[in-house]
């Protein structure tokens, strides 16, 4: 088997081959859909938020993604990064953290990590709007 690591890191390929938390949450607290199939990437991230010791904690996260290897891997790792985090902690997660957690992304694929960050922000925002209602 040829070496695919000159394209993507081992971590990216791990998440691409075995995506974590793929699917949908039954009654999500918030969800964010970003990207556009016209551009070749569409990411949907759903989060479940529960109060624990007075804090809002992300207890579950799931994704569905249409896109390249990097888009799938960034979605997958994002769910891992946020599960168990408080809302405040999750809000601080940037695309750079996503890239680092994947041991890097090729420069042309960095926009996928931005997409993952945007999906998270949008999901949190939708949770906060749902709360107000």
């Amino acid at each position, binding site marked *: *088997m*040829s070496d*695919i690591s000159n394209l*993507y890191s081992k971590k990216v*390929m791990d998440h*691409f*081959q075995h*995506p974590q938390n*793929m699917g949908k949450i039954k009654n999500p607290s918030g969800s964010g*859909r970003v990207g556009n*199939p*016209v*551009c*070749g*990437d*569409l*990411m*949907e991230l759903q989060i479940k938020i529960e109060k624990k010791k007075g804090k809002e904690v992300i207890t579950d996260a799931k994704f*569905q*993604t*249409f*896109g*390249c*290897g*990097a*888009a*799938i891997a960034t979605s997958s790792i994002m769910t891992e990064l946020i599960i168990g985090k408080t809302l405040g902690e999750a809000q601080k997660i940037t695309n750079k953290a996503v890239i680092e957690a994947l041991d890097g992304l090729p420069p*042309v694929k960095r926009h996928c990590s931005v997409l993952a960050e945007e999906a998270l922000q949008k999901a949190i925002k939708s949770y906060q709007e749902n709360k107000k209602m």
Partner: protein
Amino acid sequence: MRVYLDYAATSPIKPEIRKVIEPYLTADFGNPSSIHSWGRKARAAVDEARNQIAKFLNADANEIIFTSGGTEADNLAIRGVVIAFKGATHKPHLITSQIEHHAVIKTCEHLEKNGLAEVTYLKPNREGIIGISQVKKAIKSNTLLISIMYVNNEIGTVQPIREIGKLIEKENRTRKQRIYFHTDAVQAAEYQNMNVDFLHVDLLTISGHKIGAPKGIGALYIRKNTPMKEIIFGGEQEMNLRAGTENVVGIVALGKAVSLIKINNKTIKLRDYFIEKVLKEIPEVELNGSKENRSPNNANFYFKYIEGESILLNLDLVGIAASSGSACTSQSLQPSHVLMSCFDHPERAHGSIRFTLGEITTKEEIEYVIKNLKVIVNKLREMSPLYKGKK
């Protein structure tokens, strides 16, 4: 199992070719321009290869110019004719298509940008075919050159080159400004009629590495009396049309490669089996390109709801090589200009995969690809927010 279905990208060097080039990599290393025996031996080899190619194209040996590949041959065909154009009082007009290889499109765009030519880019129909009437309508009094590819490298569509050639010939009978006709036949050599008189073409491009020769060699057929100027300057090689010491190894290989070509119908049968089975056994798949006017080695599918690069990566993980029209596999992040021109549908360009067979492809390999393709498409659709299929 490892299955290579990317022959339109490049092909392995054929054992027979490897054998004939071996001496030119070692003992017979001479420069064809040298007067001594080393040089004369190399010159004889170049001459023989030129004859082989001339015979293959039904041309004269002095109508064949060796180049560094298909791209350079396309550049020479177009730039060479435009630069040689003596009309001076007006800009020459070129006609080409939106689905040409970039070697043609970018050359035309460059001429346009520098004010050396005006260009009409014909839009194909959904099957990727350029109509004769479209060509006829686009012809103007200052039309100098028409360049339409023989077989499209992505969707495999075979253009009506002979019919276009005959149309141009007819037009030329009553025109002041003669129109020259070029075809990029890089993807056609192994499967189509390559007789330049049958095709009624003035210029024709071929490339070595698509037909079992090494990379870095191609040739341009230039019909006698076609105005032509060099685009690379230096020595007097190739009848003053292509400076630089001849790529003897490549030239010998290209000569052998065309002499080995035999039309077989094994590939087309296997291809038809592949297309039929994929369309039947995988839901929501469509064939890109024409069903009838199609290169015998090409199958190009649109898999709805999923993206090409992730399909290619999964195929690669099980040892299968193919290629995609998706933007995500290109550095420019632009989806295939060919699929975009045929369908105006970015999702289709992103979700399309090209498989190209070679003469050594087996039915067993095709079965292996179909089996894996089913699993991969299913897996990626489960992951896709666009897929609302059975859950």
